[in-house]
């Protein structure tokens, strides 16, 4: 092709600084953490102001200062610690049972064809039943003591652990399994070296769902036929219209949720260090 046929001249090009517009002088700004804290603090301030001004009365929603005071009173008598401990023990026991069952079922269904045939369809059906709907049945079976609460948490946490761990076992990279085979790994070796380590990430996803579910179930289960635990505290407070105690208990549930989430993140950092190539300490 000949360039001579192109008669028009190319337009003149002006060069500008490549990073133009990005180099504007920085103003002094507040640190990001302070700015991020501003939102919640503003919310608390408005809430407190509404209460102090009498626009929202104590029986509707106690202001933050009252909630803190209620917390202080309950803590100083040791009552709060006692209820907290009872709730924590129920959740931990239920989780221990549920997570163990979920992992065991996922291993059976994930590693053995007959296990999948027998278990998976049944578990997928049961999974569709809302756990809290089992509450009346569980009360009939276990009465009104500790057992029904622990049982509900156990049932409610089995499924998310099972579903995610099973999917992770089945989703392990077939090419790695194949490579392992050519390098002489036996079936046991493949499970230990390839399948299980590859399923850890999926298990942790399931664990996170399970922890969220555990607290949710506990909030409801503890408000029925109990004489102890955070849910009981809420229930009692409802009778006396102590919204400060109710809000306090809810805040504690929230904190416990954050805490358990941090626990999973810690586990992820330890167990999945290879993902980011960090040195596991």
């Amino acid at each position, binding site marked *: 092709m000949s360039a001579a046929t192109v008669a028009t001249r190319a337009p003149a090009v002006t060069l500008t600084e490549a990073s133009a517009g990005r180099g504007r002088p920085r103003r002094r700004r507040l640190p990001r953490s302070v700015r991020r804290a501003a939102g919640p603090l503003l919310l608390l301030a408005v809430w407190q102001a509404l209460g102090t001004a009498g626009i929202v009365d104590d029986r509707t929603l106690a202001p933050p200062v009252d909630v803190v005071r209620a917390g202080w009173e309950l803590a100083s008598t040791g009552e709060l610690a006692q209820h907290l401990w009872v709730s924590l023990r129920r959740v931990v026991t239920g989780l221990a049972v549920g997570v163990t069952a979920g992992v065991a079922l996922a291993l059976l269904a994930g590693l053995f064809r007959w296990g999948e045939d027998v278990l998976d369809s049944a578990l997928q059906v049961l999974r569709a039943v809302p756990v809290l709907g089992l509450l009346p049945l569980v009360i009939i079976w276990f009465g009104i003591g500790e057992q029904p609460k622990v049982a509900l948490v156990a049932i409610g946490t089995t499924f998310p652990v099972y579903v995610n761990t099973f999917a992770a076992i089945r989703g392990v990279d077939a*090419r*790695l399994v*194949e*490579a*392992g*085979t*050519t*390098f*002489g*790994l036996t079936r046991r*070796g493949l499970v230990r*070296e*390839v399948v299980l*380590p*590859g399923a*850890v990430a999926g298990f942790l996803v399931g664990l996170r769902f399970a922890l969220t579910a555990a607290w949710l179930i506990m909030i409801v289960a503890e408000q029925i036929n109990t004489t102890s635990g955070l849910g009981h505290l809420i229930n009692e407070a409802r009778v006396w219209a102590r919204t400060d105690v109710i809000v306090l208990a809810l805040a504690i549930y929230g904190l416990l949720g954050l805490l358990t989430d941090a626990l999973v993140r810690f586990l992820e950092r330890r167990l999945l*260090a*290879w*993902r*980011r*190539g*960090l040195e596991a300490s």
Partner: protein
Amino acid sequence: MTAVGTTTGRPSAPDAPPAPEGRPPAGEHVAVARGLRRRFGDREVLAGVDLEIRRDEFVALLGRSGTGKTTLLRTLAGLDADHEGSVRVAAARSVVFQEPRLLPWRRVLPNVVLGLDRTPATLERGRSALAEVGLADHARAWPATLSGGEAQRVALARALVREPALLLLDEPFGALDALTRQRMHRLLRRLCRRHQPGVLLVTHDVDEAITLADRVIVLDGGRITLDEPVGLPHPRPRSHDDVERLRRRLLAALGVDPTEDG
């Protein structure tokens, strides 16, 4: 066929000849396929392949995509049992795949000795295999931190630490950039001279086959349509007339007219 089970350590000095005990002597077959057929549904991917690979022989297997190169390699690797015909291979064989296929949750050294016992002697062998591919410092690294070329070198170390009598390479350099690939070619030639396995390299790259192979095979339509030794001295620059003639012949066998332009 000699069963190649135990190997008695690696050569102590880098340039010493490999220990001959327990390994088939040079020239002995490490893979023999007779009348090998494989079909996927209606499609016959391998339509009667006869192939012999000797120890100490570097065979390049060329073919357009979909001609059954990889199927043939997978059959020799024992990853495809669904074939007709007889296939006998040395017990000591290793594979390097197109992707490194390292276990991301194991550090480099455990990946190299995967499937072997974890005795100090084995770990030491793993370390020297890493040293051979130039990655002695990376024994404790996570695979995720390696570059593509480094990861493939680990895969090569993992294959060689087993002292294979048959080394199967499934387009191992296909995903690497041109410079890294050239370095890998030199490394592979050096390692093969030292360990002297029988090698089957599956590739679609004619120049790669010419650079590395003692013998070139072209697979087309499920059959071997060309099988000839490359009797050229190394290095084999393309400017060399014999190299260029071989290159044209191979391209023609692959159905590419080398004189046609664009």
